[in-house]
């Protein structure tokens, strides 16, 4: 009983905060708005900790909060499923959210929309918690769309900027494309299983392994269809190729939300969802293959784009895309726990990298171009060290958290035998080099080398950037404290948790792996502790690739900056493909957005205006008018006209009469 009120407290506390700051922000003022929201998110975090201890003691929960709706014999409910997967997500979400809340005090200091911002991020926390705590598909969809809404609101937070409101509409619509598939997947689940409750669906799924999907004209397995449709939803939310296009643009939002929503939590919802659905995905190798290939494409090709970005946030954004690809590949290889493990470590180090980027942006007076930075380590030591930690974790340096999760993914993919696993393995291994290269390119350009800030730069927004001669300085403690607090798990969490999460029985109840998929089992046999794993990695390919990437970045951007310029000139074709992000945005704008607008105008002008209104409606009106015009002609008002017609009429009648007699 007591625990159940705690379950409720976790999502509701941030909701109350959101409502307080959103509805009464003006009354509360800035300070009280952030105090209340931060306190309530902290409450949520500590409650999650208590629940974590309880869950670890073996107390799982699956129950209804209230009945939302019923129809036929189905009841649609709002309810919680509290198991180890849920509670891990709850901890990650509330912890990162708490850090971001604190950080926001510093980052949004001068913004007129201060209270609104706190309201939104608390609302996001609520939505995300409802998503991860759901015990049924409908509530999952609720949370799914709700986080999408808050993401929309936050990307467009600076709503007077044309780029921001373009990006948020784009993000919402691209996500809607994913949700379109997601909702149809849910529809199939409801139709076949008669319920949307996870537990009943999962326990009955194996009865449908050989069934075909009830889709007329398409011959595909039922579970394959369900899984792929659900995964299309994940492709939208977790920005997988080809629905990835919204994520880089989402960087238009303020940096704290890039960390919270577009790196640590919301974009991992798709990964979480697939892991949650493991009892379904395990029954369809086709779907798993599909997942793996999509993830591999994203992991490698989005990484390439990170290399040529000059906007500090966009580098991190492309690295997020690529890392989400890694997680997705792991899902496809049935290494759900590795995916979720990487989700967790990534949440810490990527939130750290984003918040550090934000700290740099503050110091640079909102100039985000890394070509205008350099040598910042002297001025911002905390940001520098924490960024270095984040980058080392990201590229998979042994003993850092990212190493354990990423290496596990690579190993798991290597052991997969599904179609496409060869390509996926190549993609994730090659991706290691790419990741290290762009991460350290950014790191060196920002923190080392020549100080390029404070110069006159032309054609640039005069509100941004340091004035000539002005020096950057370290940001205030509300900004650096979250950096430090995030740096600690970025280093340690992998070493501590790999054994229970990946090879122990942490996810025993939550994640199901079919007996035909034994990547994790094999890995468990080879695992001899976290320490040995890191040592062993020193003689493995990924480590040398990562080192190679970092060293190349150092050589190319610190020692010989002329070489990248030469490469850019020599290979201008490849460069412009990358610079145009493989032309996806252009194609989408032209084909989908332009096409829809064109079709709309055409259909309207032709269908509604010309055909229905022009021809039928007004046409029949004209027809009536014509008839009446003819009839009116008879109403001349001259008696002799009427008499004439009368005579004709009478004689006609008489003629007819005589004929028929």
């Amino acid at each position, binding site marked *: 009983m007591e625990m159940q009120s705690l379950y409720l407290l976790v999502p509701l506390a941030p909701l109350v905060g959101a409502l307080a700051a959103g509805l009464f922000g003006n009354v509360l003022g800035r300070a009280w708005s952030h105090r209340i929201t931060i306190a309530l998110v902290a409450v949520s975090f500590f409650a999650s900790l208590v629940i974590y201890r309880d869950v670890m003691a073996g107390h799982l929960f699956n129950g209804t909060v209230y009945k939302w709706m019923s129809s036929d014999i189905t009841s649609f409910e709002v309810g919680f499923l509290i198991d180890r997967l849920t509670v891990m997500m709850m901890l990650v979400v509330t912890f990162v959210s708490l850090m971001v809340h604190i950080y926001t005090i510093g980052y949004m200091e001068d913004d007129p929309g201060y209270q609104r911002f706190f309201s939104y991020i608390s609302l996001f926390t609520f939505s995300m918690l409802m998503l991860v705590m759901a015990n049924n598909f409908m509530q999952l969809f609720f949370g799914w769309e*709700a986080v999408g809404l808050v993401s929309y609101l936050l990307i467009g937070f600076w709503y007077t900027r044309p780029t921001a409101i373009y990006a948020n509409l784009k993000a919402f619509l691209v996500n809607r*494309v994913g949700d379109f598939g997601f909702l149809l997947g849910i529809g199939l689940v409801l139709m076949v299983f008669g319920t949307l409750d996870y537990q009943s669906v999962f326990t009955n799924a194996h009865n449908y392994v050989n069934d075909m999907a009830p889709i007329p*004209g398409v011959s595909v397995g039922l579970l394959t269809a369900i899984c792929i449709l659900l995964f299309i939803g994940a492709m939208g939310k977790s920005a997988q190729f080809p629905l990835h296009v919204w994520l880089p643009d989402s960087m238009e939002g303020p940096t704290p939300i890039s960390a919270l929503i577009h790196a640590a939590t919301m974009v991992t919802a798709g990964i979480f969802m697939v892991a949650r659905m493991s009892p379904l995905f395990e029954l369809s190798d086709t779907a798993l293959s599909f997942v793996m290939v999509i993830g591999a494409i994203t992991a490698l090709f989005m990484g390439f784009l990170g290399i040529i970005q000059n906007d500090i946030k966009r580098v991190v954004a492309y690295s997020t895309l690529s890392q989400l690809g890694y997680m997705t590949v792991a899902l496809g290889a049935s290494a759900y726990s590795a995916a979720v493990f990487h989700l967790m470590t990534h949440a810490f180090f990527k939130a750290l990298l984003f918040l550090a980027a934000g700290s740099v942006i503050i110091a640079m007076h909102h100039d985000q171009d890394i070509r205008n930075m350099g040598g910042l380590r002297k001025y911002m030591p905390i940001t520098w060290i924490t960024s270095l930690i984040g980058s080392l974790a990201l590229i998979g340096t042994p003993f850092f958290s990212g190493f354990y999760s990423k290496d596990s993914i690579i190993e798991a993919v290597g052991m997969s035998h599904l179609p496409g696993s060869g390509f996926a393995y190549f993609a994730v291994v090659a991706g290691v080099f790419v990741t290290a290269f762009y991460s350290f390119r950014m790191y060196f350009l920002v923190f080392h080398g020549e100080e390029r800030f404070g110069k006159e730069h032309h054609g640039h927004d005069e509100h941004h950037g340091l004035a000539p001669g002005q020096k950057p300085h370290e940001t205030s403690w509300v900004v650096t404290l979250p950096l430090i607090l995030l740096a600690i798990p970025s280093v340690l969490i992998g070493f501590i948790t790999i054994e229970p999460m990946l090879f122990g029985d942490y996810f025993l109840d939550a994640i199901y792996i079919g007996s035909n998929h034994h990547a994790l089992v094999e890995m468990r046999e080879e695992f001899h502790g976290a320490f040995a794993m890191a040592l062993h990695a020193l003689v493995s390919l990924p480590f040398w690739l990562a080192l190679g990437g970092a060293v190349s970045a150092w050589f190319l951007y610190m020692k010989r900056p002329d070489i990248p310029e030469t490469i850019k000139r020599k290979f201008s074709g490849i460069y412009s493909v990358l610079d145009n992000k493989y032309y996806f945005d252009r194609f989408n704008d032209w084909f989908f957005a332009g096409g829809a*607008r064109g079709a709309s105008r055409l*259909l309207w002008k032709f269908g509604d205006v010309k055909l229905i209104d022009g021809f039928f409606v007004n046409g029949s009106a004209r027809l009536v008018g014509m008839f009446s015009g003819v009839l009116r002609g008879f109403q001349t008002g001259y008696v002799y006209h009427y008499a004439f017609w009368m005579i004709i009429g009478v004689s006609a009648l008489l003629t007819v009469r005589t004929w028929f007699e």
Partner: protein
Amino acid sequence: MIFGYPLLSAAVWLPILFGLLVLATGNDRNAKMARTIALVGAILSFLVTIPLYTGFDRMTSDMQFVEMKDWIARFNIHYHLGVDGISVLFVLLNSFFTPLVVIAGWKVIEKRVAQYMAAFLIMSGLVNGVFVALDAMLFYVFWEAMLIPMFIIIGVWGGPNRVYAALKFFLYTLLGSLLMLVALLYLYHQSGGSFEILDFHRMAMPSLSAQILVFIAFFMAFSVKVPMVPVHTWLPDAHVEAPTGGSVVLAAIMLKVGAYGFIRFSLPITPDASHYLAPVMITLSLIAVVYIGLVALTQSDMKKLVAYSSISHMGFVTLGFFIFNAYGMEGALLQMISHGFVAGALFLCIGVLYDRVHSRQIVDYGGVAKKMPIFAAFFMLFAMANSGLPGTSGFVGEFMVIMGAVKANFWYAFLAASTLIFGAAYTLWMYKRVIFGAITNDHVAHLRDIGNREKLVFVFLTVAVLGMGLYPLPFADIMHTTVNDLLVHLATPKVLN
């Protein structure tokens, strides 16, 4: 009957009486009194309908709160009223909107105030009459009478092209109604001299072709009102020319009357024809969802855009009816109620802008959020509801209909679910151009945010939209028995031999 007085008669006649009373205040010197009386009347009329919900017996699909008196004994026509689990909701929805419309027009309408308020009150009573009439002739009288106040509202308080729009509206709907009258007379004849709608439900029909003809006659009347493609083009014109209150009632209530007709007449009276023609109905519904959804995208007039969005959303209603399962049917009914709230709210939002800038063109706006943040927040909520966001009422019906459509045929659901993309695209694109961005012109720069009167209206609608989105059970609960019985009835062939 509860508390000893005839509730349904009260729901019908109380607003009409108050309407006449308002008319009696005469010219605009007494405008203040006219407004006050209208508001009191509207609120009272809403309050008398509340016992219909609280006192409703959910276990039966029989008609409740029945009143039965002779009217024209010679033709066996009765004053027969009653509600079941479906119609009761629409009486409430209609009565809920009347006070809102009165408040919304409080300051905006300055000319012929009494007549304006009276028209809405009288219309509200007549619409309630449509929903509660159990005698076909009585229904027909209310059905036709209801057109008159709306015709006047558009024709008198409307925009520059109001006469064309009013006439189009009137002729379109009248044409359909006449065929319905023919069908009713045929049914009267077949039933051996009864105008009881419930007798029509029970009685067998001589042949499938007879059913089909009756179905088509009803279809002509109801499809125009819904409106279904291709007889929808009167709606954008009517909305554009109608004053705000007129648009609100048109979208929130009038469109529901057509859909209600399908439930009360077409489906139960001609179940076999309904099955036979279901593919046609489903096709028309899906065209409404997809084609109209696309057409809405490039509308430059906000009212036209929301009008097209209404047609697209009503496509879900007719789709839900004709896939013949509980998800679809209940989803359709919930969609009707939700669409009332959401479309009504959107027209009020556009009205708020129109009152200030006197333009409905999207290009005349931009950056409104800067000057009207509170309004922008309300508008955002309703725009999201129109995009079917979970947690708002707009989600419930669409979700259920899509779930039902998957059951019927996956591809129906596939096409219907495209609204997830189109609906969001046209609504949020409009929102973006109107509300977001930099301030584009002087009109926008001088906007002032909504006042308490406008806030009040929006708060009521917010409660409705969010309440229904977060907890639709009370709306669905009351209709279960009736819907299930209707589905059983529909599955039983009623052709003789």
